[in-house]
């Protein structure tokens, strides 16, 4: 059970959070996006072993989404930042 440091609320237990998967940049405008690029955005992610970017939501707490960098092999949480903050 991870202890996740919410950027607003501090460390809380994993059941308070919702996992949002690996983030992707939304290709816009829609008219210029090929079918392949759109499918890539919808369905494909890098899924790295090791340090990996994920978005989480503190759903049972402040309801805010944030970006986490986590090592998928060791589970160690490397960093968290609010959306829009520099990586």
């Amino acid at each position: 059970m991870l202890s996740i440091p919410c950027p607003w609320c501090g460390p809380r237990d994993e059941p308070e959070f919702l996992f949002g998967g690996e983030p992707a940049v939304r290709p816009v405008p829609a008219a210029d996006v090929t079918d392949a690029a759109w499918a890539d955005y919808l369905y494909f992610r890098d899924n790295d072993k090791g340090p990996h970017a994920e978005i989480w939501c503190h759903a049972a707490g402040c309801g805010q989404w944030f970006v986490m960098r986590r090592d998928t092999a060791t589970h160690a949480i490397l960093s968290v930042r609010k959306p829009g903050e520099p990586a």
Partner: protein
Amino acid sequence: MTARRLSQGGRIDRTKPLPFTWHGTAMTGFAGDTVASALLANGVKIVGRSFKYHRARGIFGAWVEEPNGILDLEYNGAHDPNARATTVQLQAGMAARGVNARPDVDRDIYRGIDLLNRFLPAGFYYKTFFPNWHRYEPRIRAMAGLGRLRGDTDARHFENRSALADVLVVGAGPAGLAAARAASSAGLSVILADDRAEIGGSLLWNDATIDGYAGIDWAAHALVNSGVRILSRTTVFGAYDDGAFGLLECRATAPTGWAEDRLWTVRARQTILAPGAIERPLVFPHNDRPGVMLAAAALNYLRQYGVLVGDEVVVATNNDSAYATALALREAGATVTLADVRPALPDVAHAAQSVGIRVLANSVVLNTVGSGGVRLVDIGPADAASPRDATMRVPASVVATSGGFSPAVHLHSQSRGKLRWDESRAAFLPAGTVANQHFVAADTLAEAIAQGHGAGIAAATALGRTVTIAPPTTPTAPQADPIRPYWCVPIKGVRQWLDLQNDVTVKDVRLAARENYSSVEHLKRYTTLGMATDQGKTSNVNGLALLATATGQTIPQVGTTTFRPPYTPVTLGALAGMRHGALYAPWRHLPAHAEHAALNADMREYGNWWRPACYKRPGETAADAIQREAAAARRSAGLFDGSSLGKIIVDGPDAAAFLNLMYYNEVANLKPGRLRYVLLLRENGVVYDDGVVARIGPGRYQLSPSSSHTAGVLAMLEAWHQTEYPSLRVALHDVTSAWATFALSGPDSRNLLAPMTDIELTALPHMAFADGTILGIAGRIARVSFTGERSYEISVPASYGPSLWRALLQTDATPYGIESLSVLRAEKGYILIGTDTDGMTLPDDLGISGPLRAKKVDFVGKRSLTTPDALRLDRRQFVGLLPLDPHAVPHVGSHAIERTATGVRSLGWVTSACHSPALGRSIALGMIERGRALIESGGEVELFHLGKTSRAKIVSPVFYDAAGEKLHG
């Protein structure tokens, strides 16, 4: 001779006798006994039967390592079919029985199976699967298992607790006590957990002097006034992420019952593991007879429970520790013969010899003899080739054996710590450290105290604090002579046991190696070594060492199997805590819940809301009520509680722009006082929710998502606002619970409602709303319909819900529930998300395609509506179905099939179906390939369900009032 209670000694209270029964026979134990010590004190030899061969089994250990004493226990109305006798505290009135035997463990009729043991080696079970696994599997499976469940409901009360601590110390033996003492002196919050009732660990049965006190006395006082939170009878069963640990507190003293466990989740910044070590036996021929037990256990029974396990004892060992057992048993009056595997006698042998113990070097047990228990023991040289090499036969009822100790590295390994094999100590020890964890593995009391205190210092330092006290002191003991690893007697043709519960022998390990199961993980699964309820605590190391020999590897090369929680069994009830039955998951009530209950509504769970399905009158079935309610709504007026419908207020200068980016439909041009039906898509174009948007003010909207999707819609809107459109100035308030909303629906609705409100209803067209008062209370009336009749949704603050419902009932409107509403909306072809739609339904499949052409902004899902798959001409489309038999209601999920030359193909399926009171016949809705073309052509389809077929005509889904006159009038 059997085990017996001595008149003195032990930490039991002889002034408090506890009556109990064993197989119905009355016996007595004392306060402080475990069930195992009480059985031994009463001379019980056989406590169970082994899993496979049904051989007699006696008590082997004294605590969690016990493989044999698994009993059926009853006490105070509670029942445990697989209780471990060595860890259950005896209570007055307990009824104990053996398991896995018929009629009882002494006379088991299945013991004859052992005669067939040659045909039942490891792996025999899967070999019976060929050629046909049905042949033997059912019978073998029926015989498997130990205890039997009774099927009673467990009425015990379990709890969960959460706690934080600076330091968690696991184990309250000398090391753990020293660690807790040191850490708390540094001002840290400390939780100390130990699975025994009394703290002290090995000090409870070993002589020791610490700081000048007797070990037990030191233990009792070491933490007084320290502020350390001590959890006794608490097993730390699992290590999880980030310093989280699972603990199981056995509250045997709980007044309302027995063993009502409390599950703790403790998160500690630093953890000190001082769990001690588990003894393993020497392996020798017929080492499974009742009477063969661990040497430390024999000492434990004497010192803690005043039980002398036998008057004639053989001690078999390869290390110094068993000499303490030999000396103690001798002092209690037993005749003791000690066989030491080592070629030269150790220093400690002199003390033994001086009190009359016969000590033999280079000696092992070559056989035990006796049915129902050990009676004679053969002893011979350690390199004997055959049982006939025995040099002496000794009468004895007990063989107390020690083959070495395995530190309990489980929590370290669960934390992904690595292990290394220490050749000189013949043990697996931690290699390296786990972050924020400290492990104590000591061979002597002095080392244990020093390492424990040192770990306390390390933990404090890591948290920036200083330990202010000196470590406890203990006299140095003479150096022990080294252990000689000895994995089994090198004899063939006679069985030597490894796993006593699962009947795994040395022969099975060699068989596994021969059949090429050379990995330790394969060994475990192929032979089931270590898979019994003791999880191989006394057999794993012996087994993998023998695998190493059999495959020509070293022990480190073989390694151990993966350690997984829990360390000892955890009651499922404890994991659930209070979350079972009515409290399993949170549920919600409507504001007028009591009113519906008073009307005897058929309440059902929809999502997490309890809502009326229908309101049955006396003598009605649910189906009757549904038809009656739906008919009444169309004939005069119906009354529905829609308070669970979501209400999300969206406010801000960019509210319109934001909603236009989120929703499929155009929102920005919605006029104040108006409502619009809208769809919310996922990014893959699939319709996620439908609902209504109301324009309340210049920059303010109210969204009404469906009841079950409100939380999801809110989460989606928040996610897009926070991560994709953070610069848009908009905020969302979920006010769902603040309002009670009732729908008054039907031709009489306006007449009935008009006298109750100051809002001019004749001036309110369909899809418009107005604010005003209803019976003096400020609220809102929206003209929006899910029934197809003229319908008014009346909203007041939730606290007025019950009284408004009562007032509306007095108008003689007929209350109708969700199931009735479902019929009314089906008659109008209104979709239910998740019923008529699924994870692939796009807006155009439902016939809604306008916004795609008209809307310019990149709303969610837009790009997915022009992919090749979205533009396919053969997509399933929403249609109505009229079964040719007007009395037959098709099953939801029936497939519409097409018979081709090559077989049968599905064209889609029925999504909703019911008897329509308005049409007086059956109707259905479905998603069928090229559905709209079929409506045009008036085609028919064949419907298939569970082998039966029927036919239906494809029609428009709007069965009733296609022109919408009722709606707009």
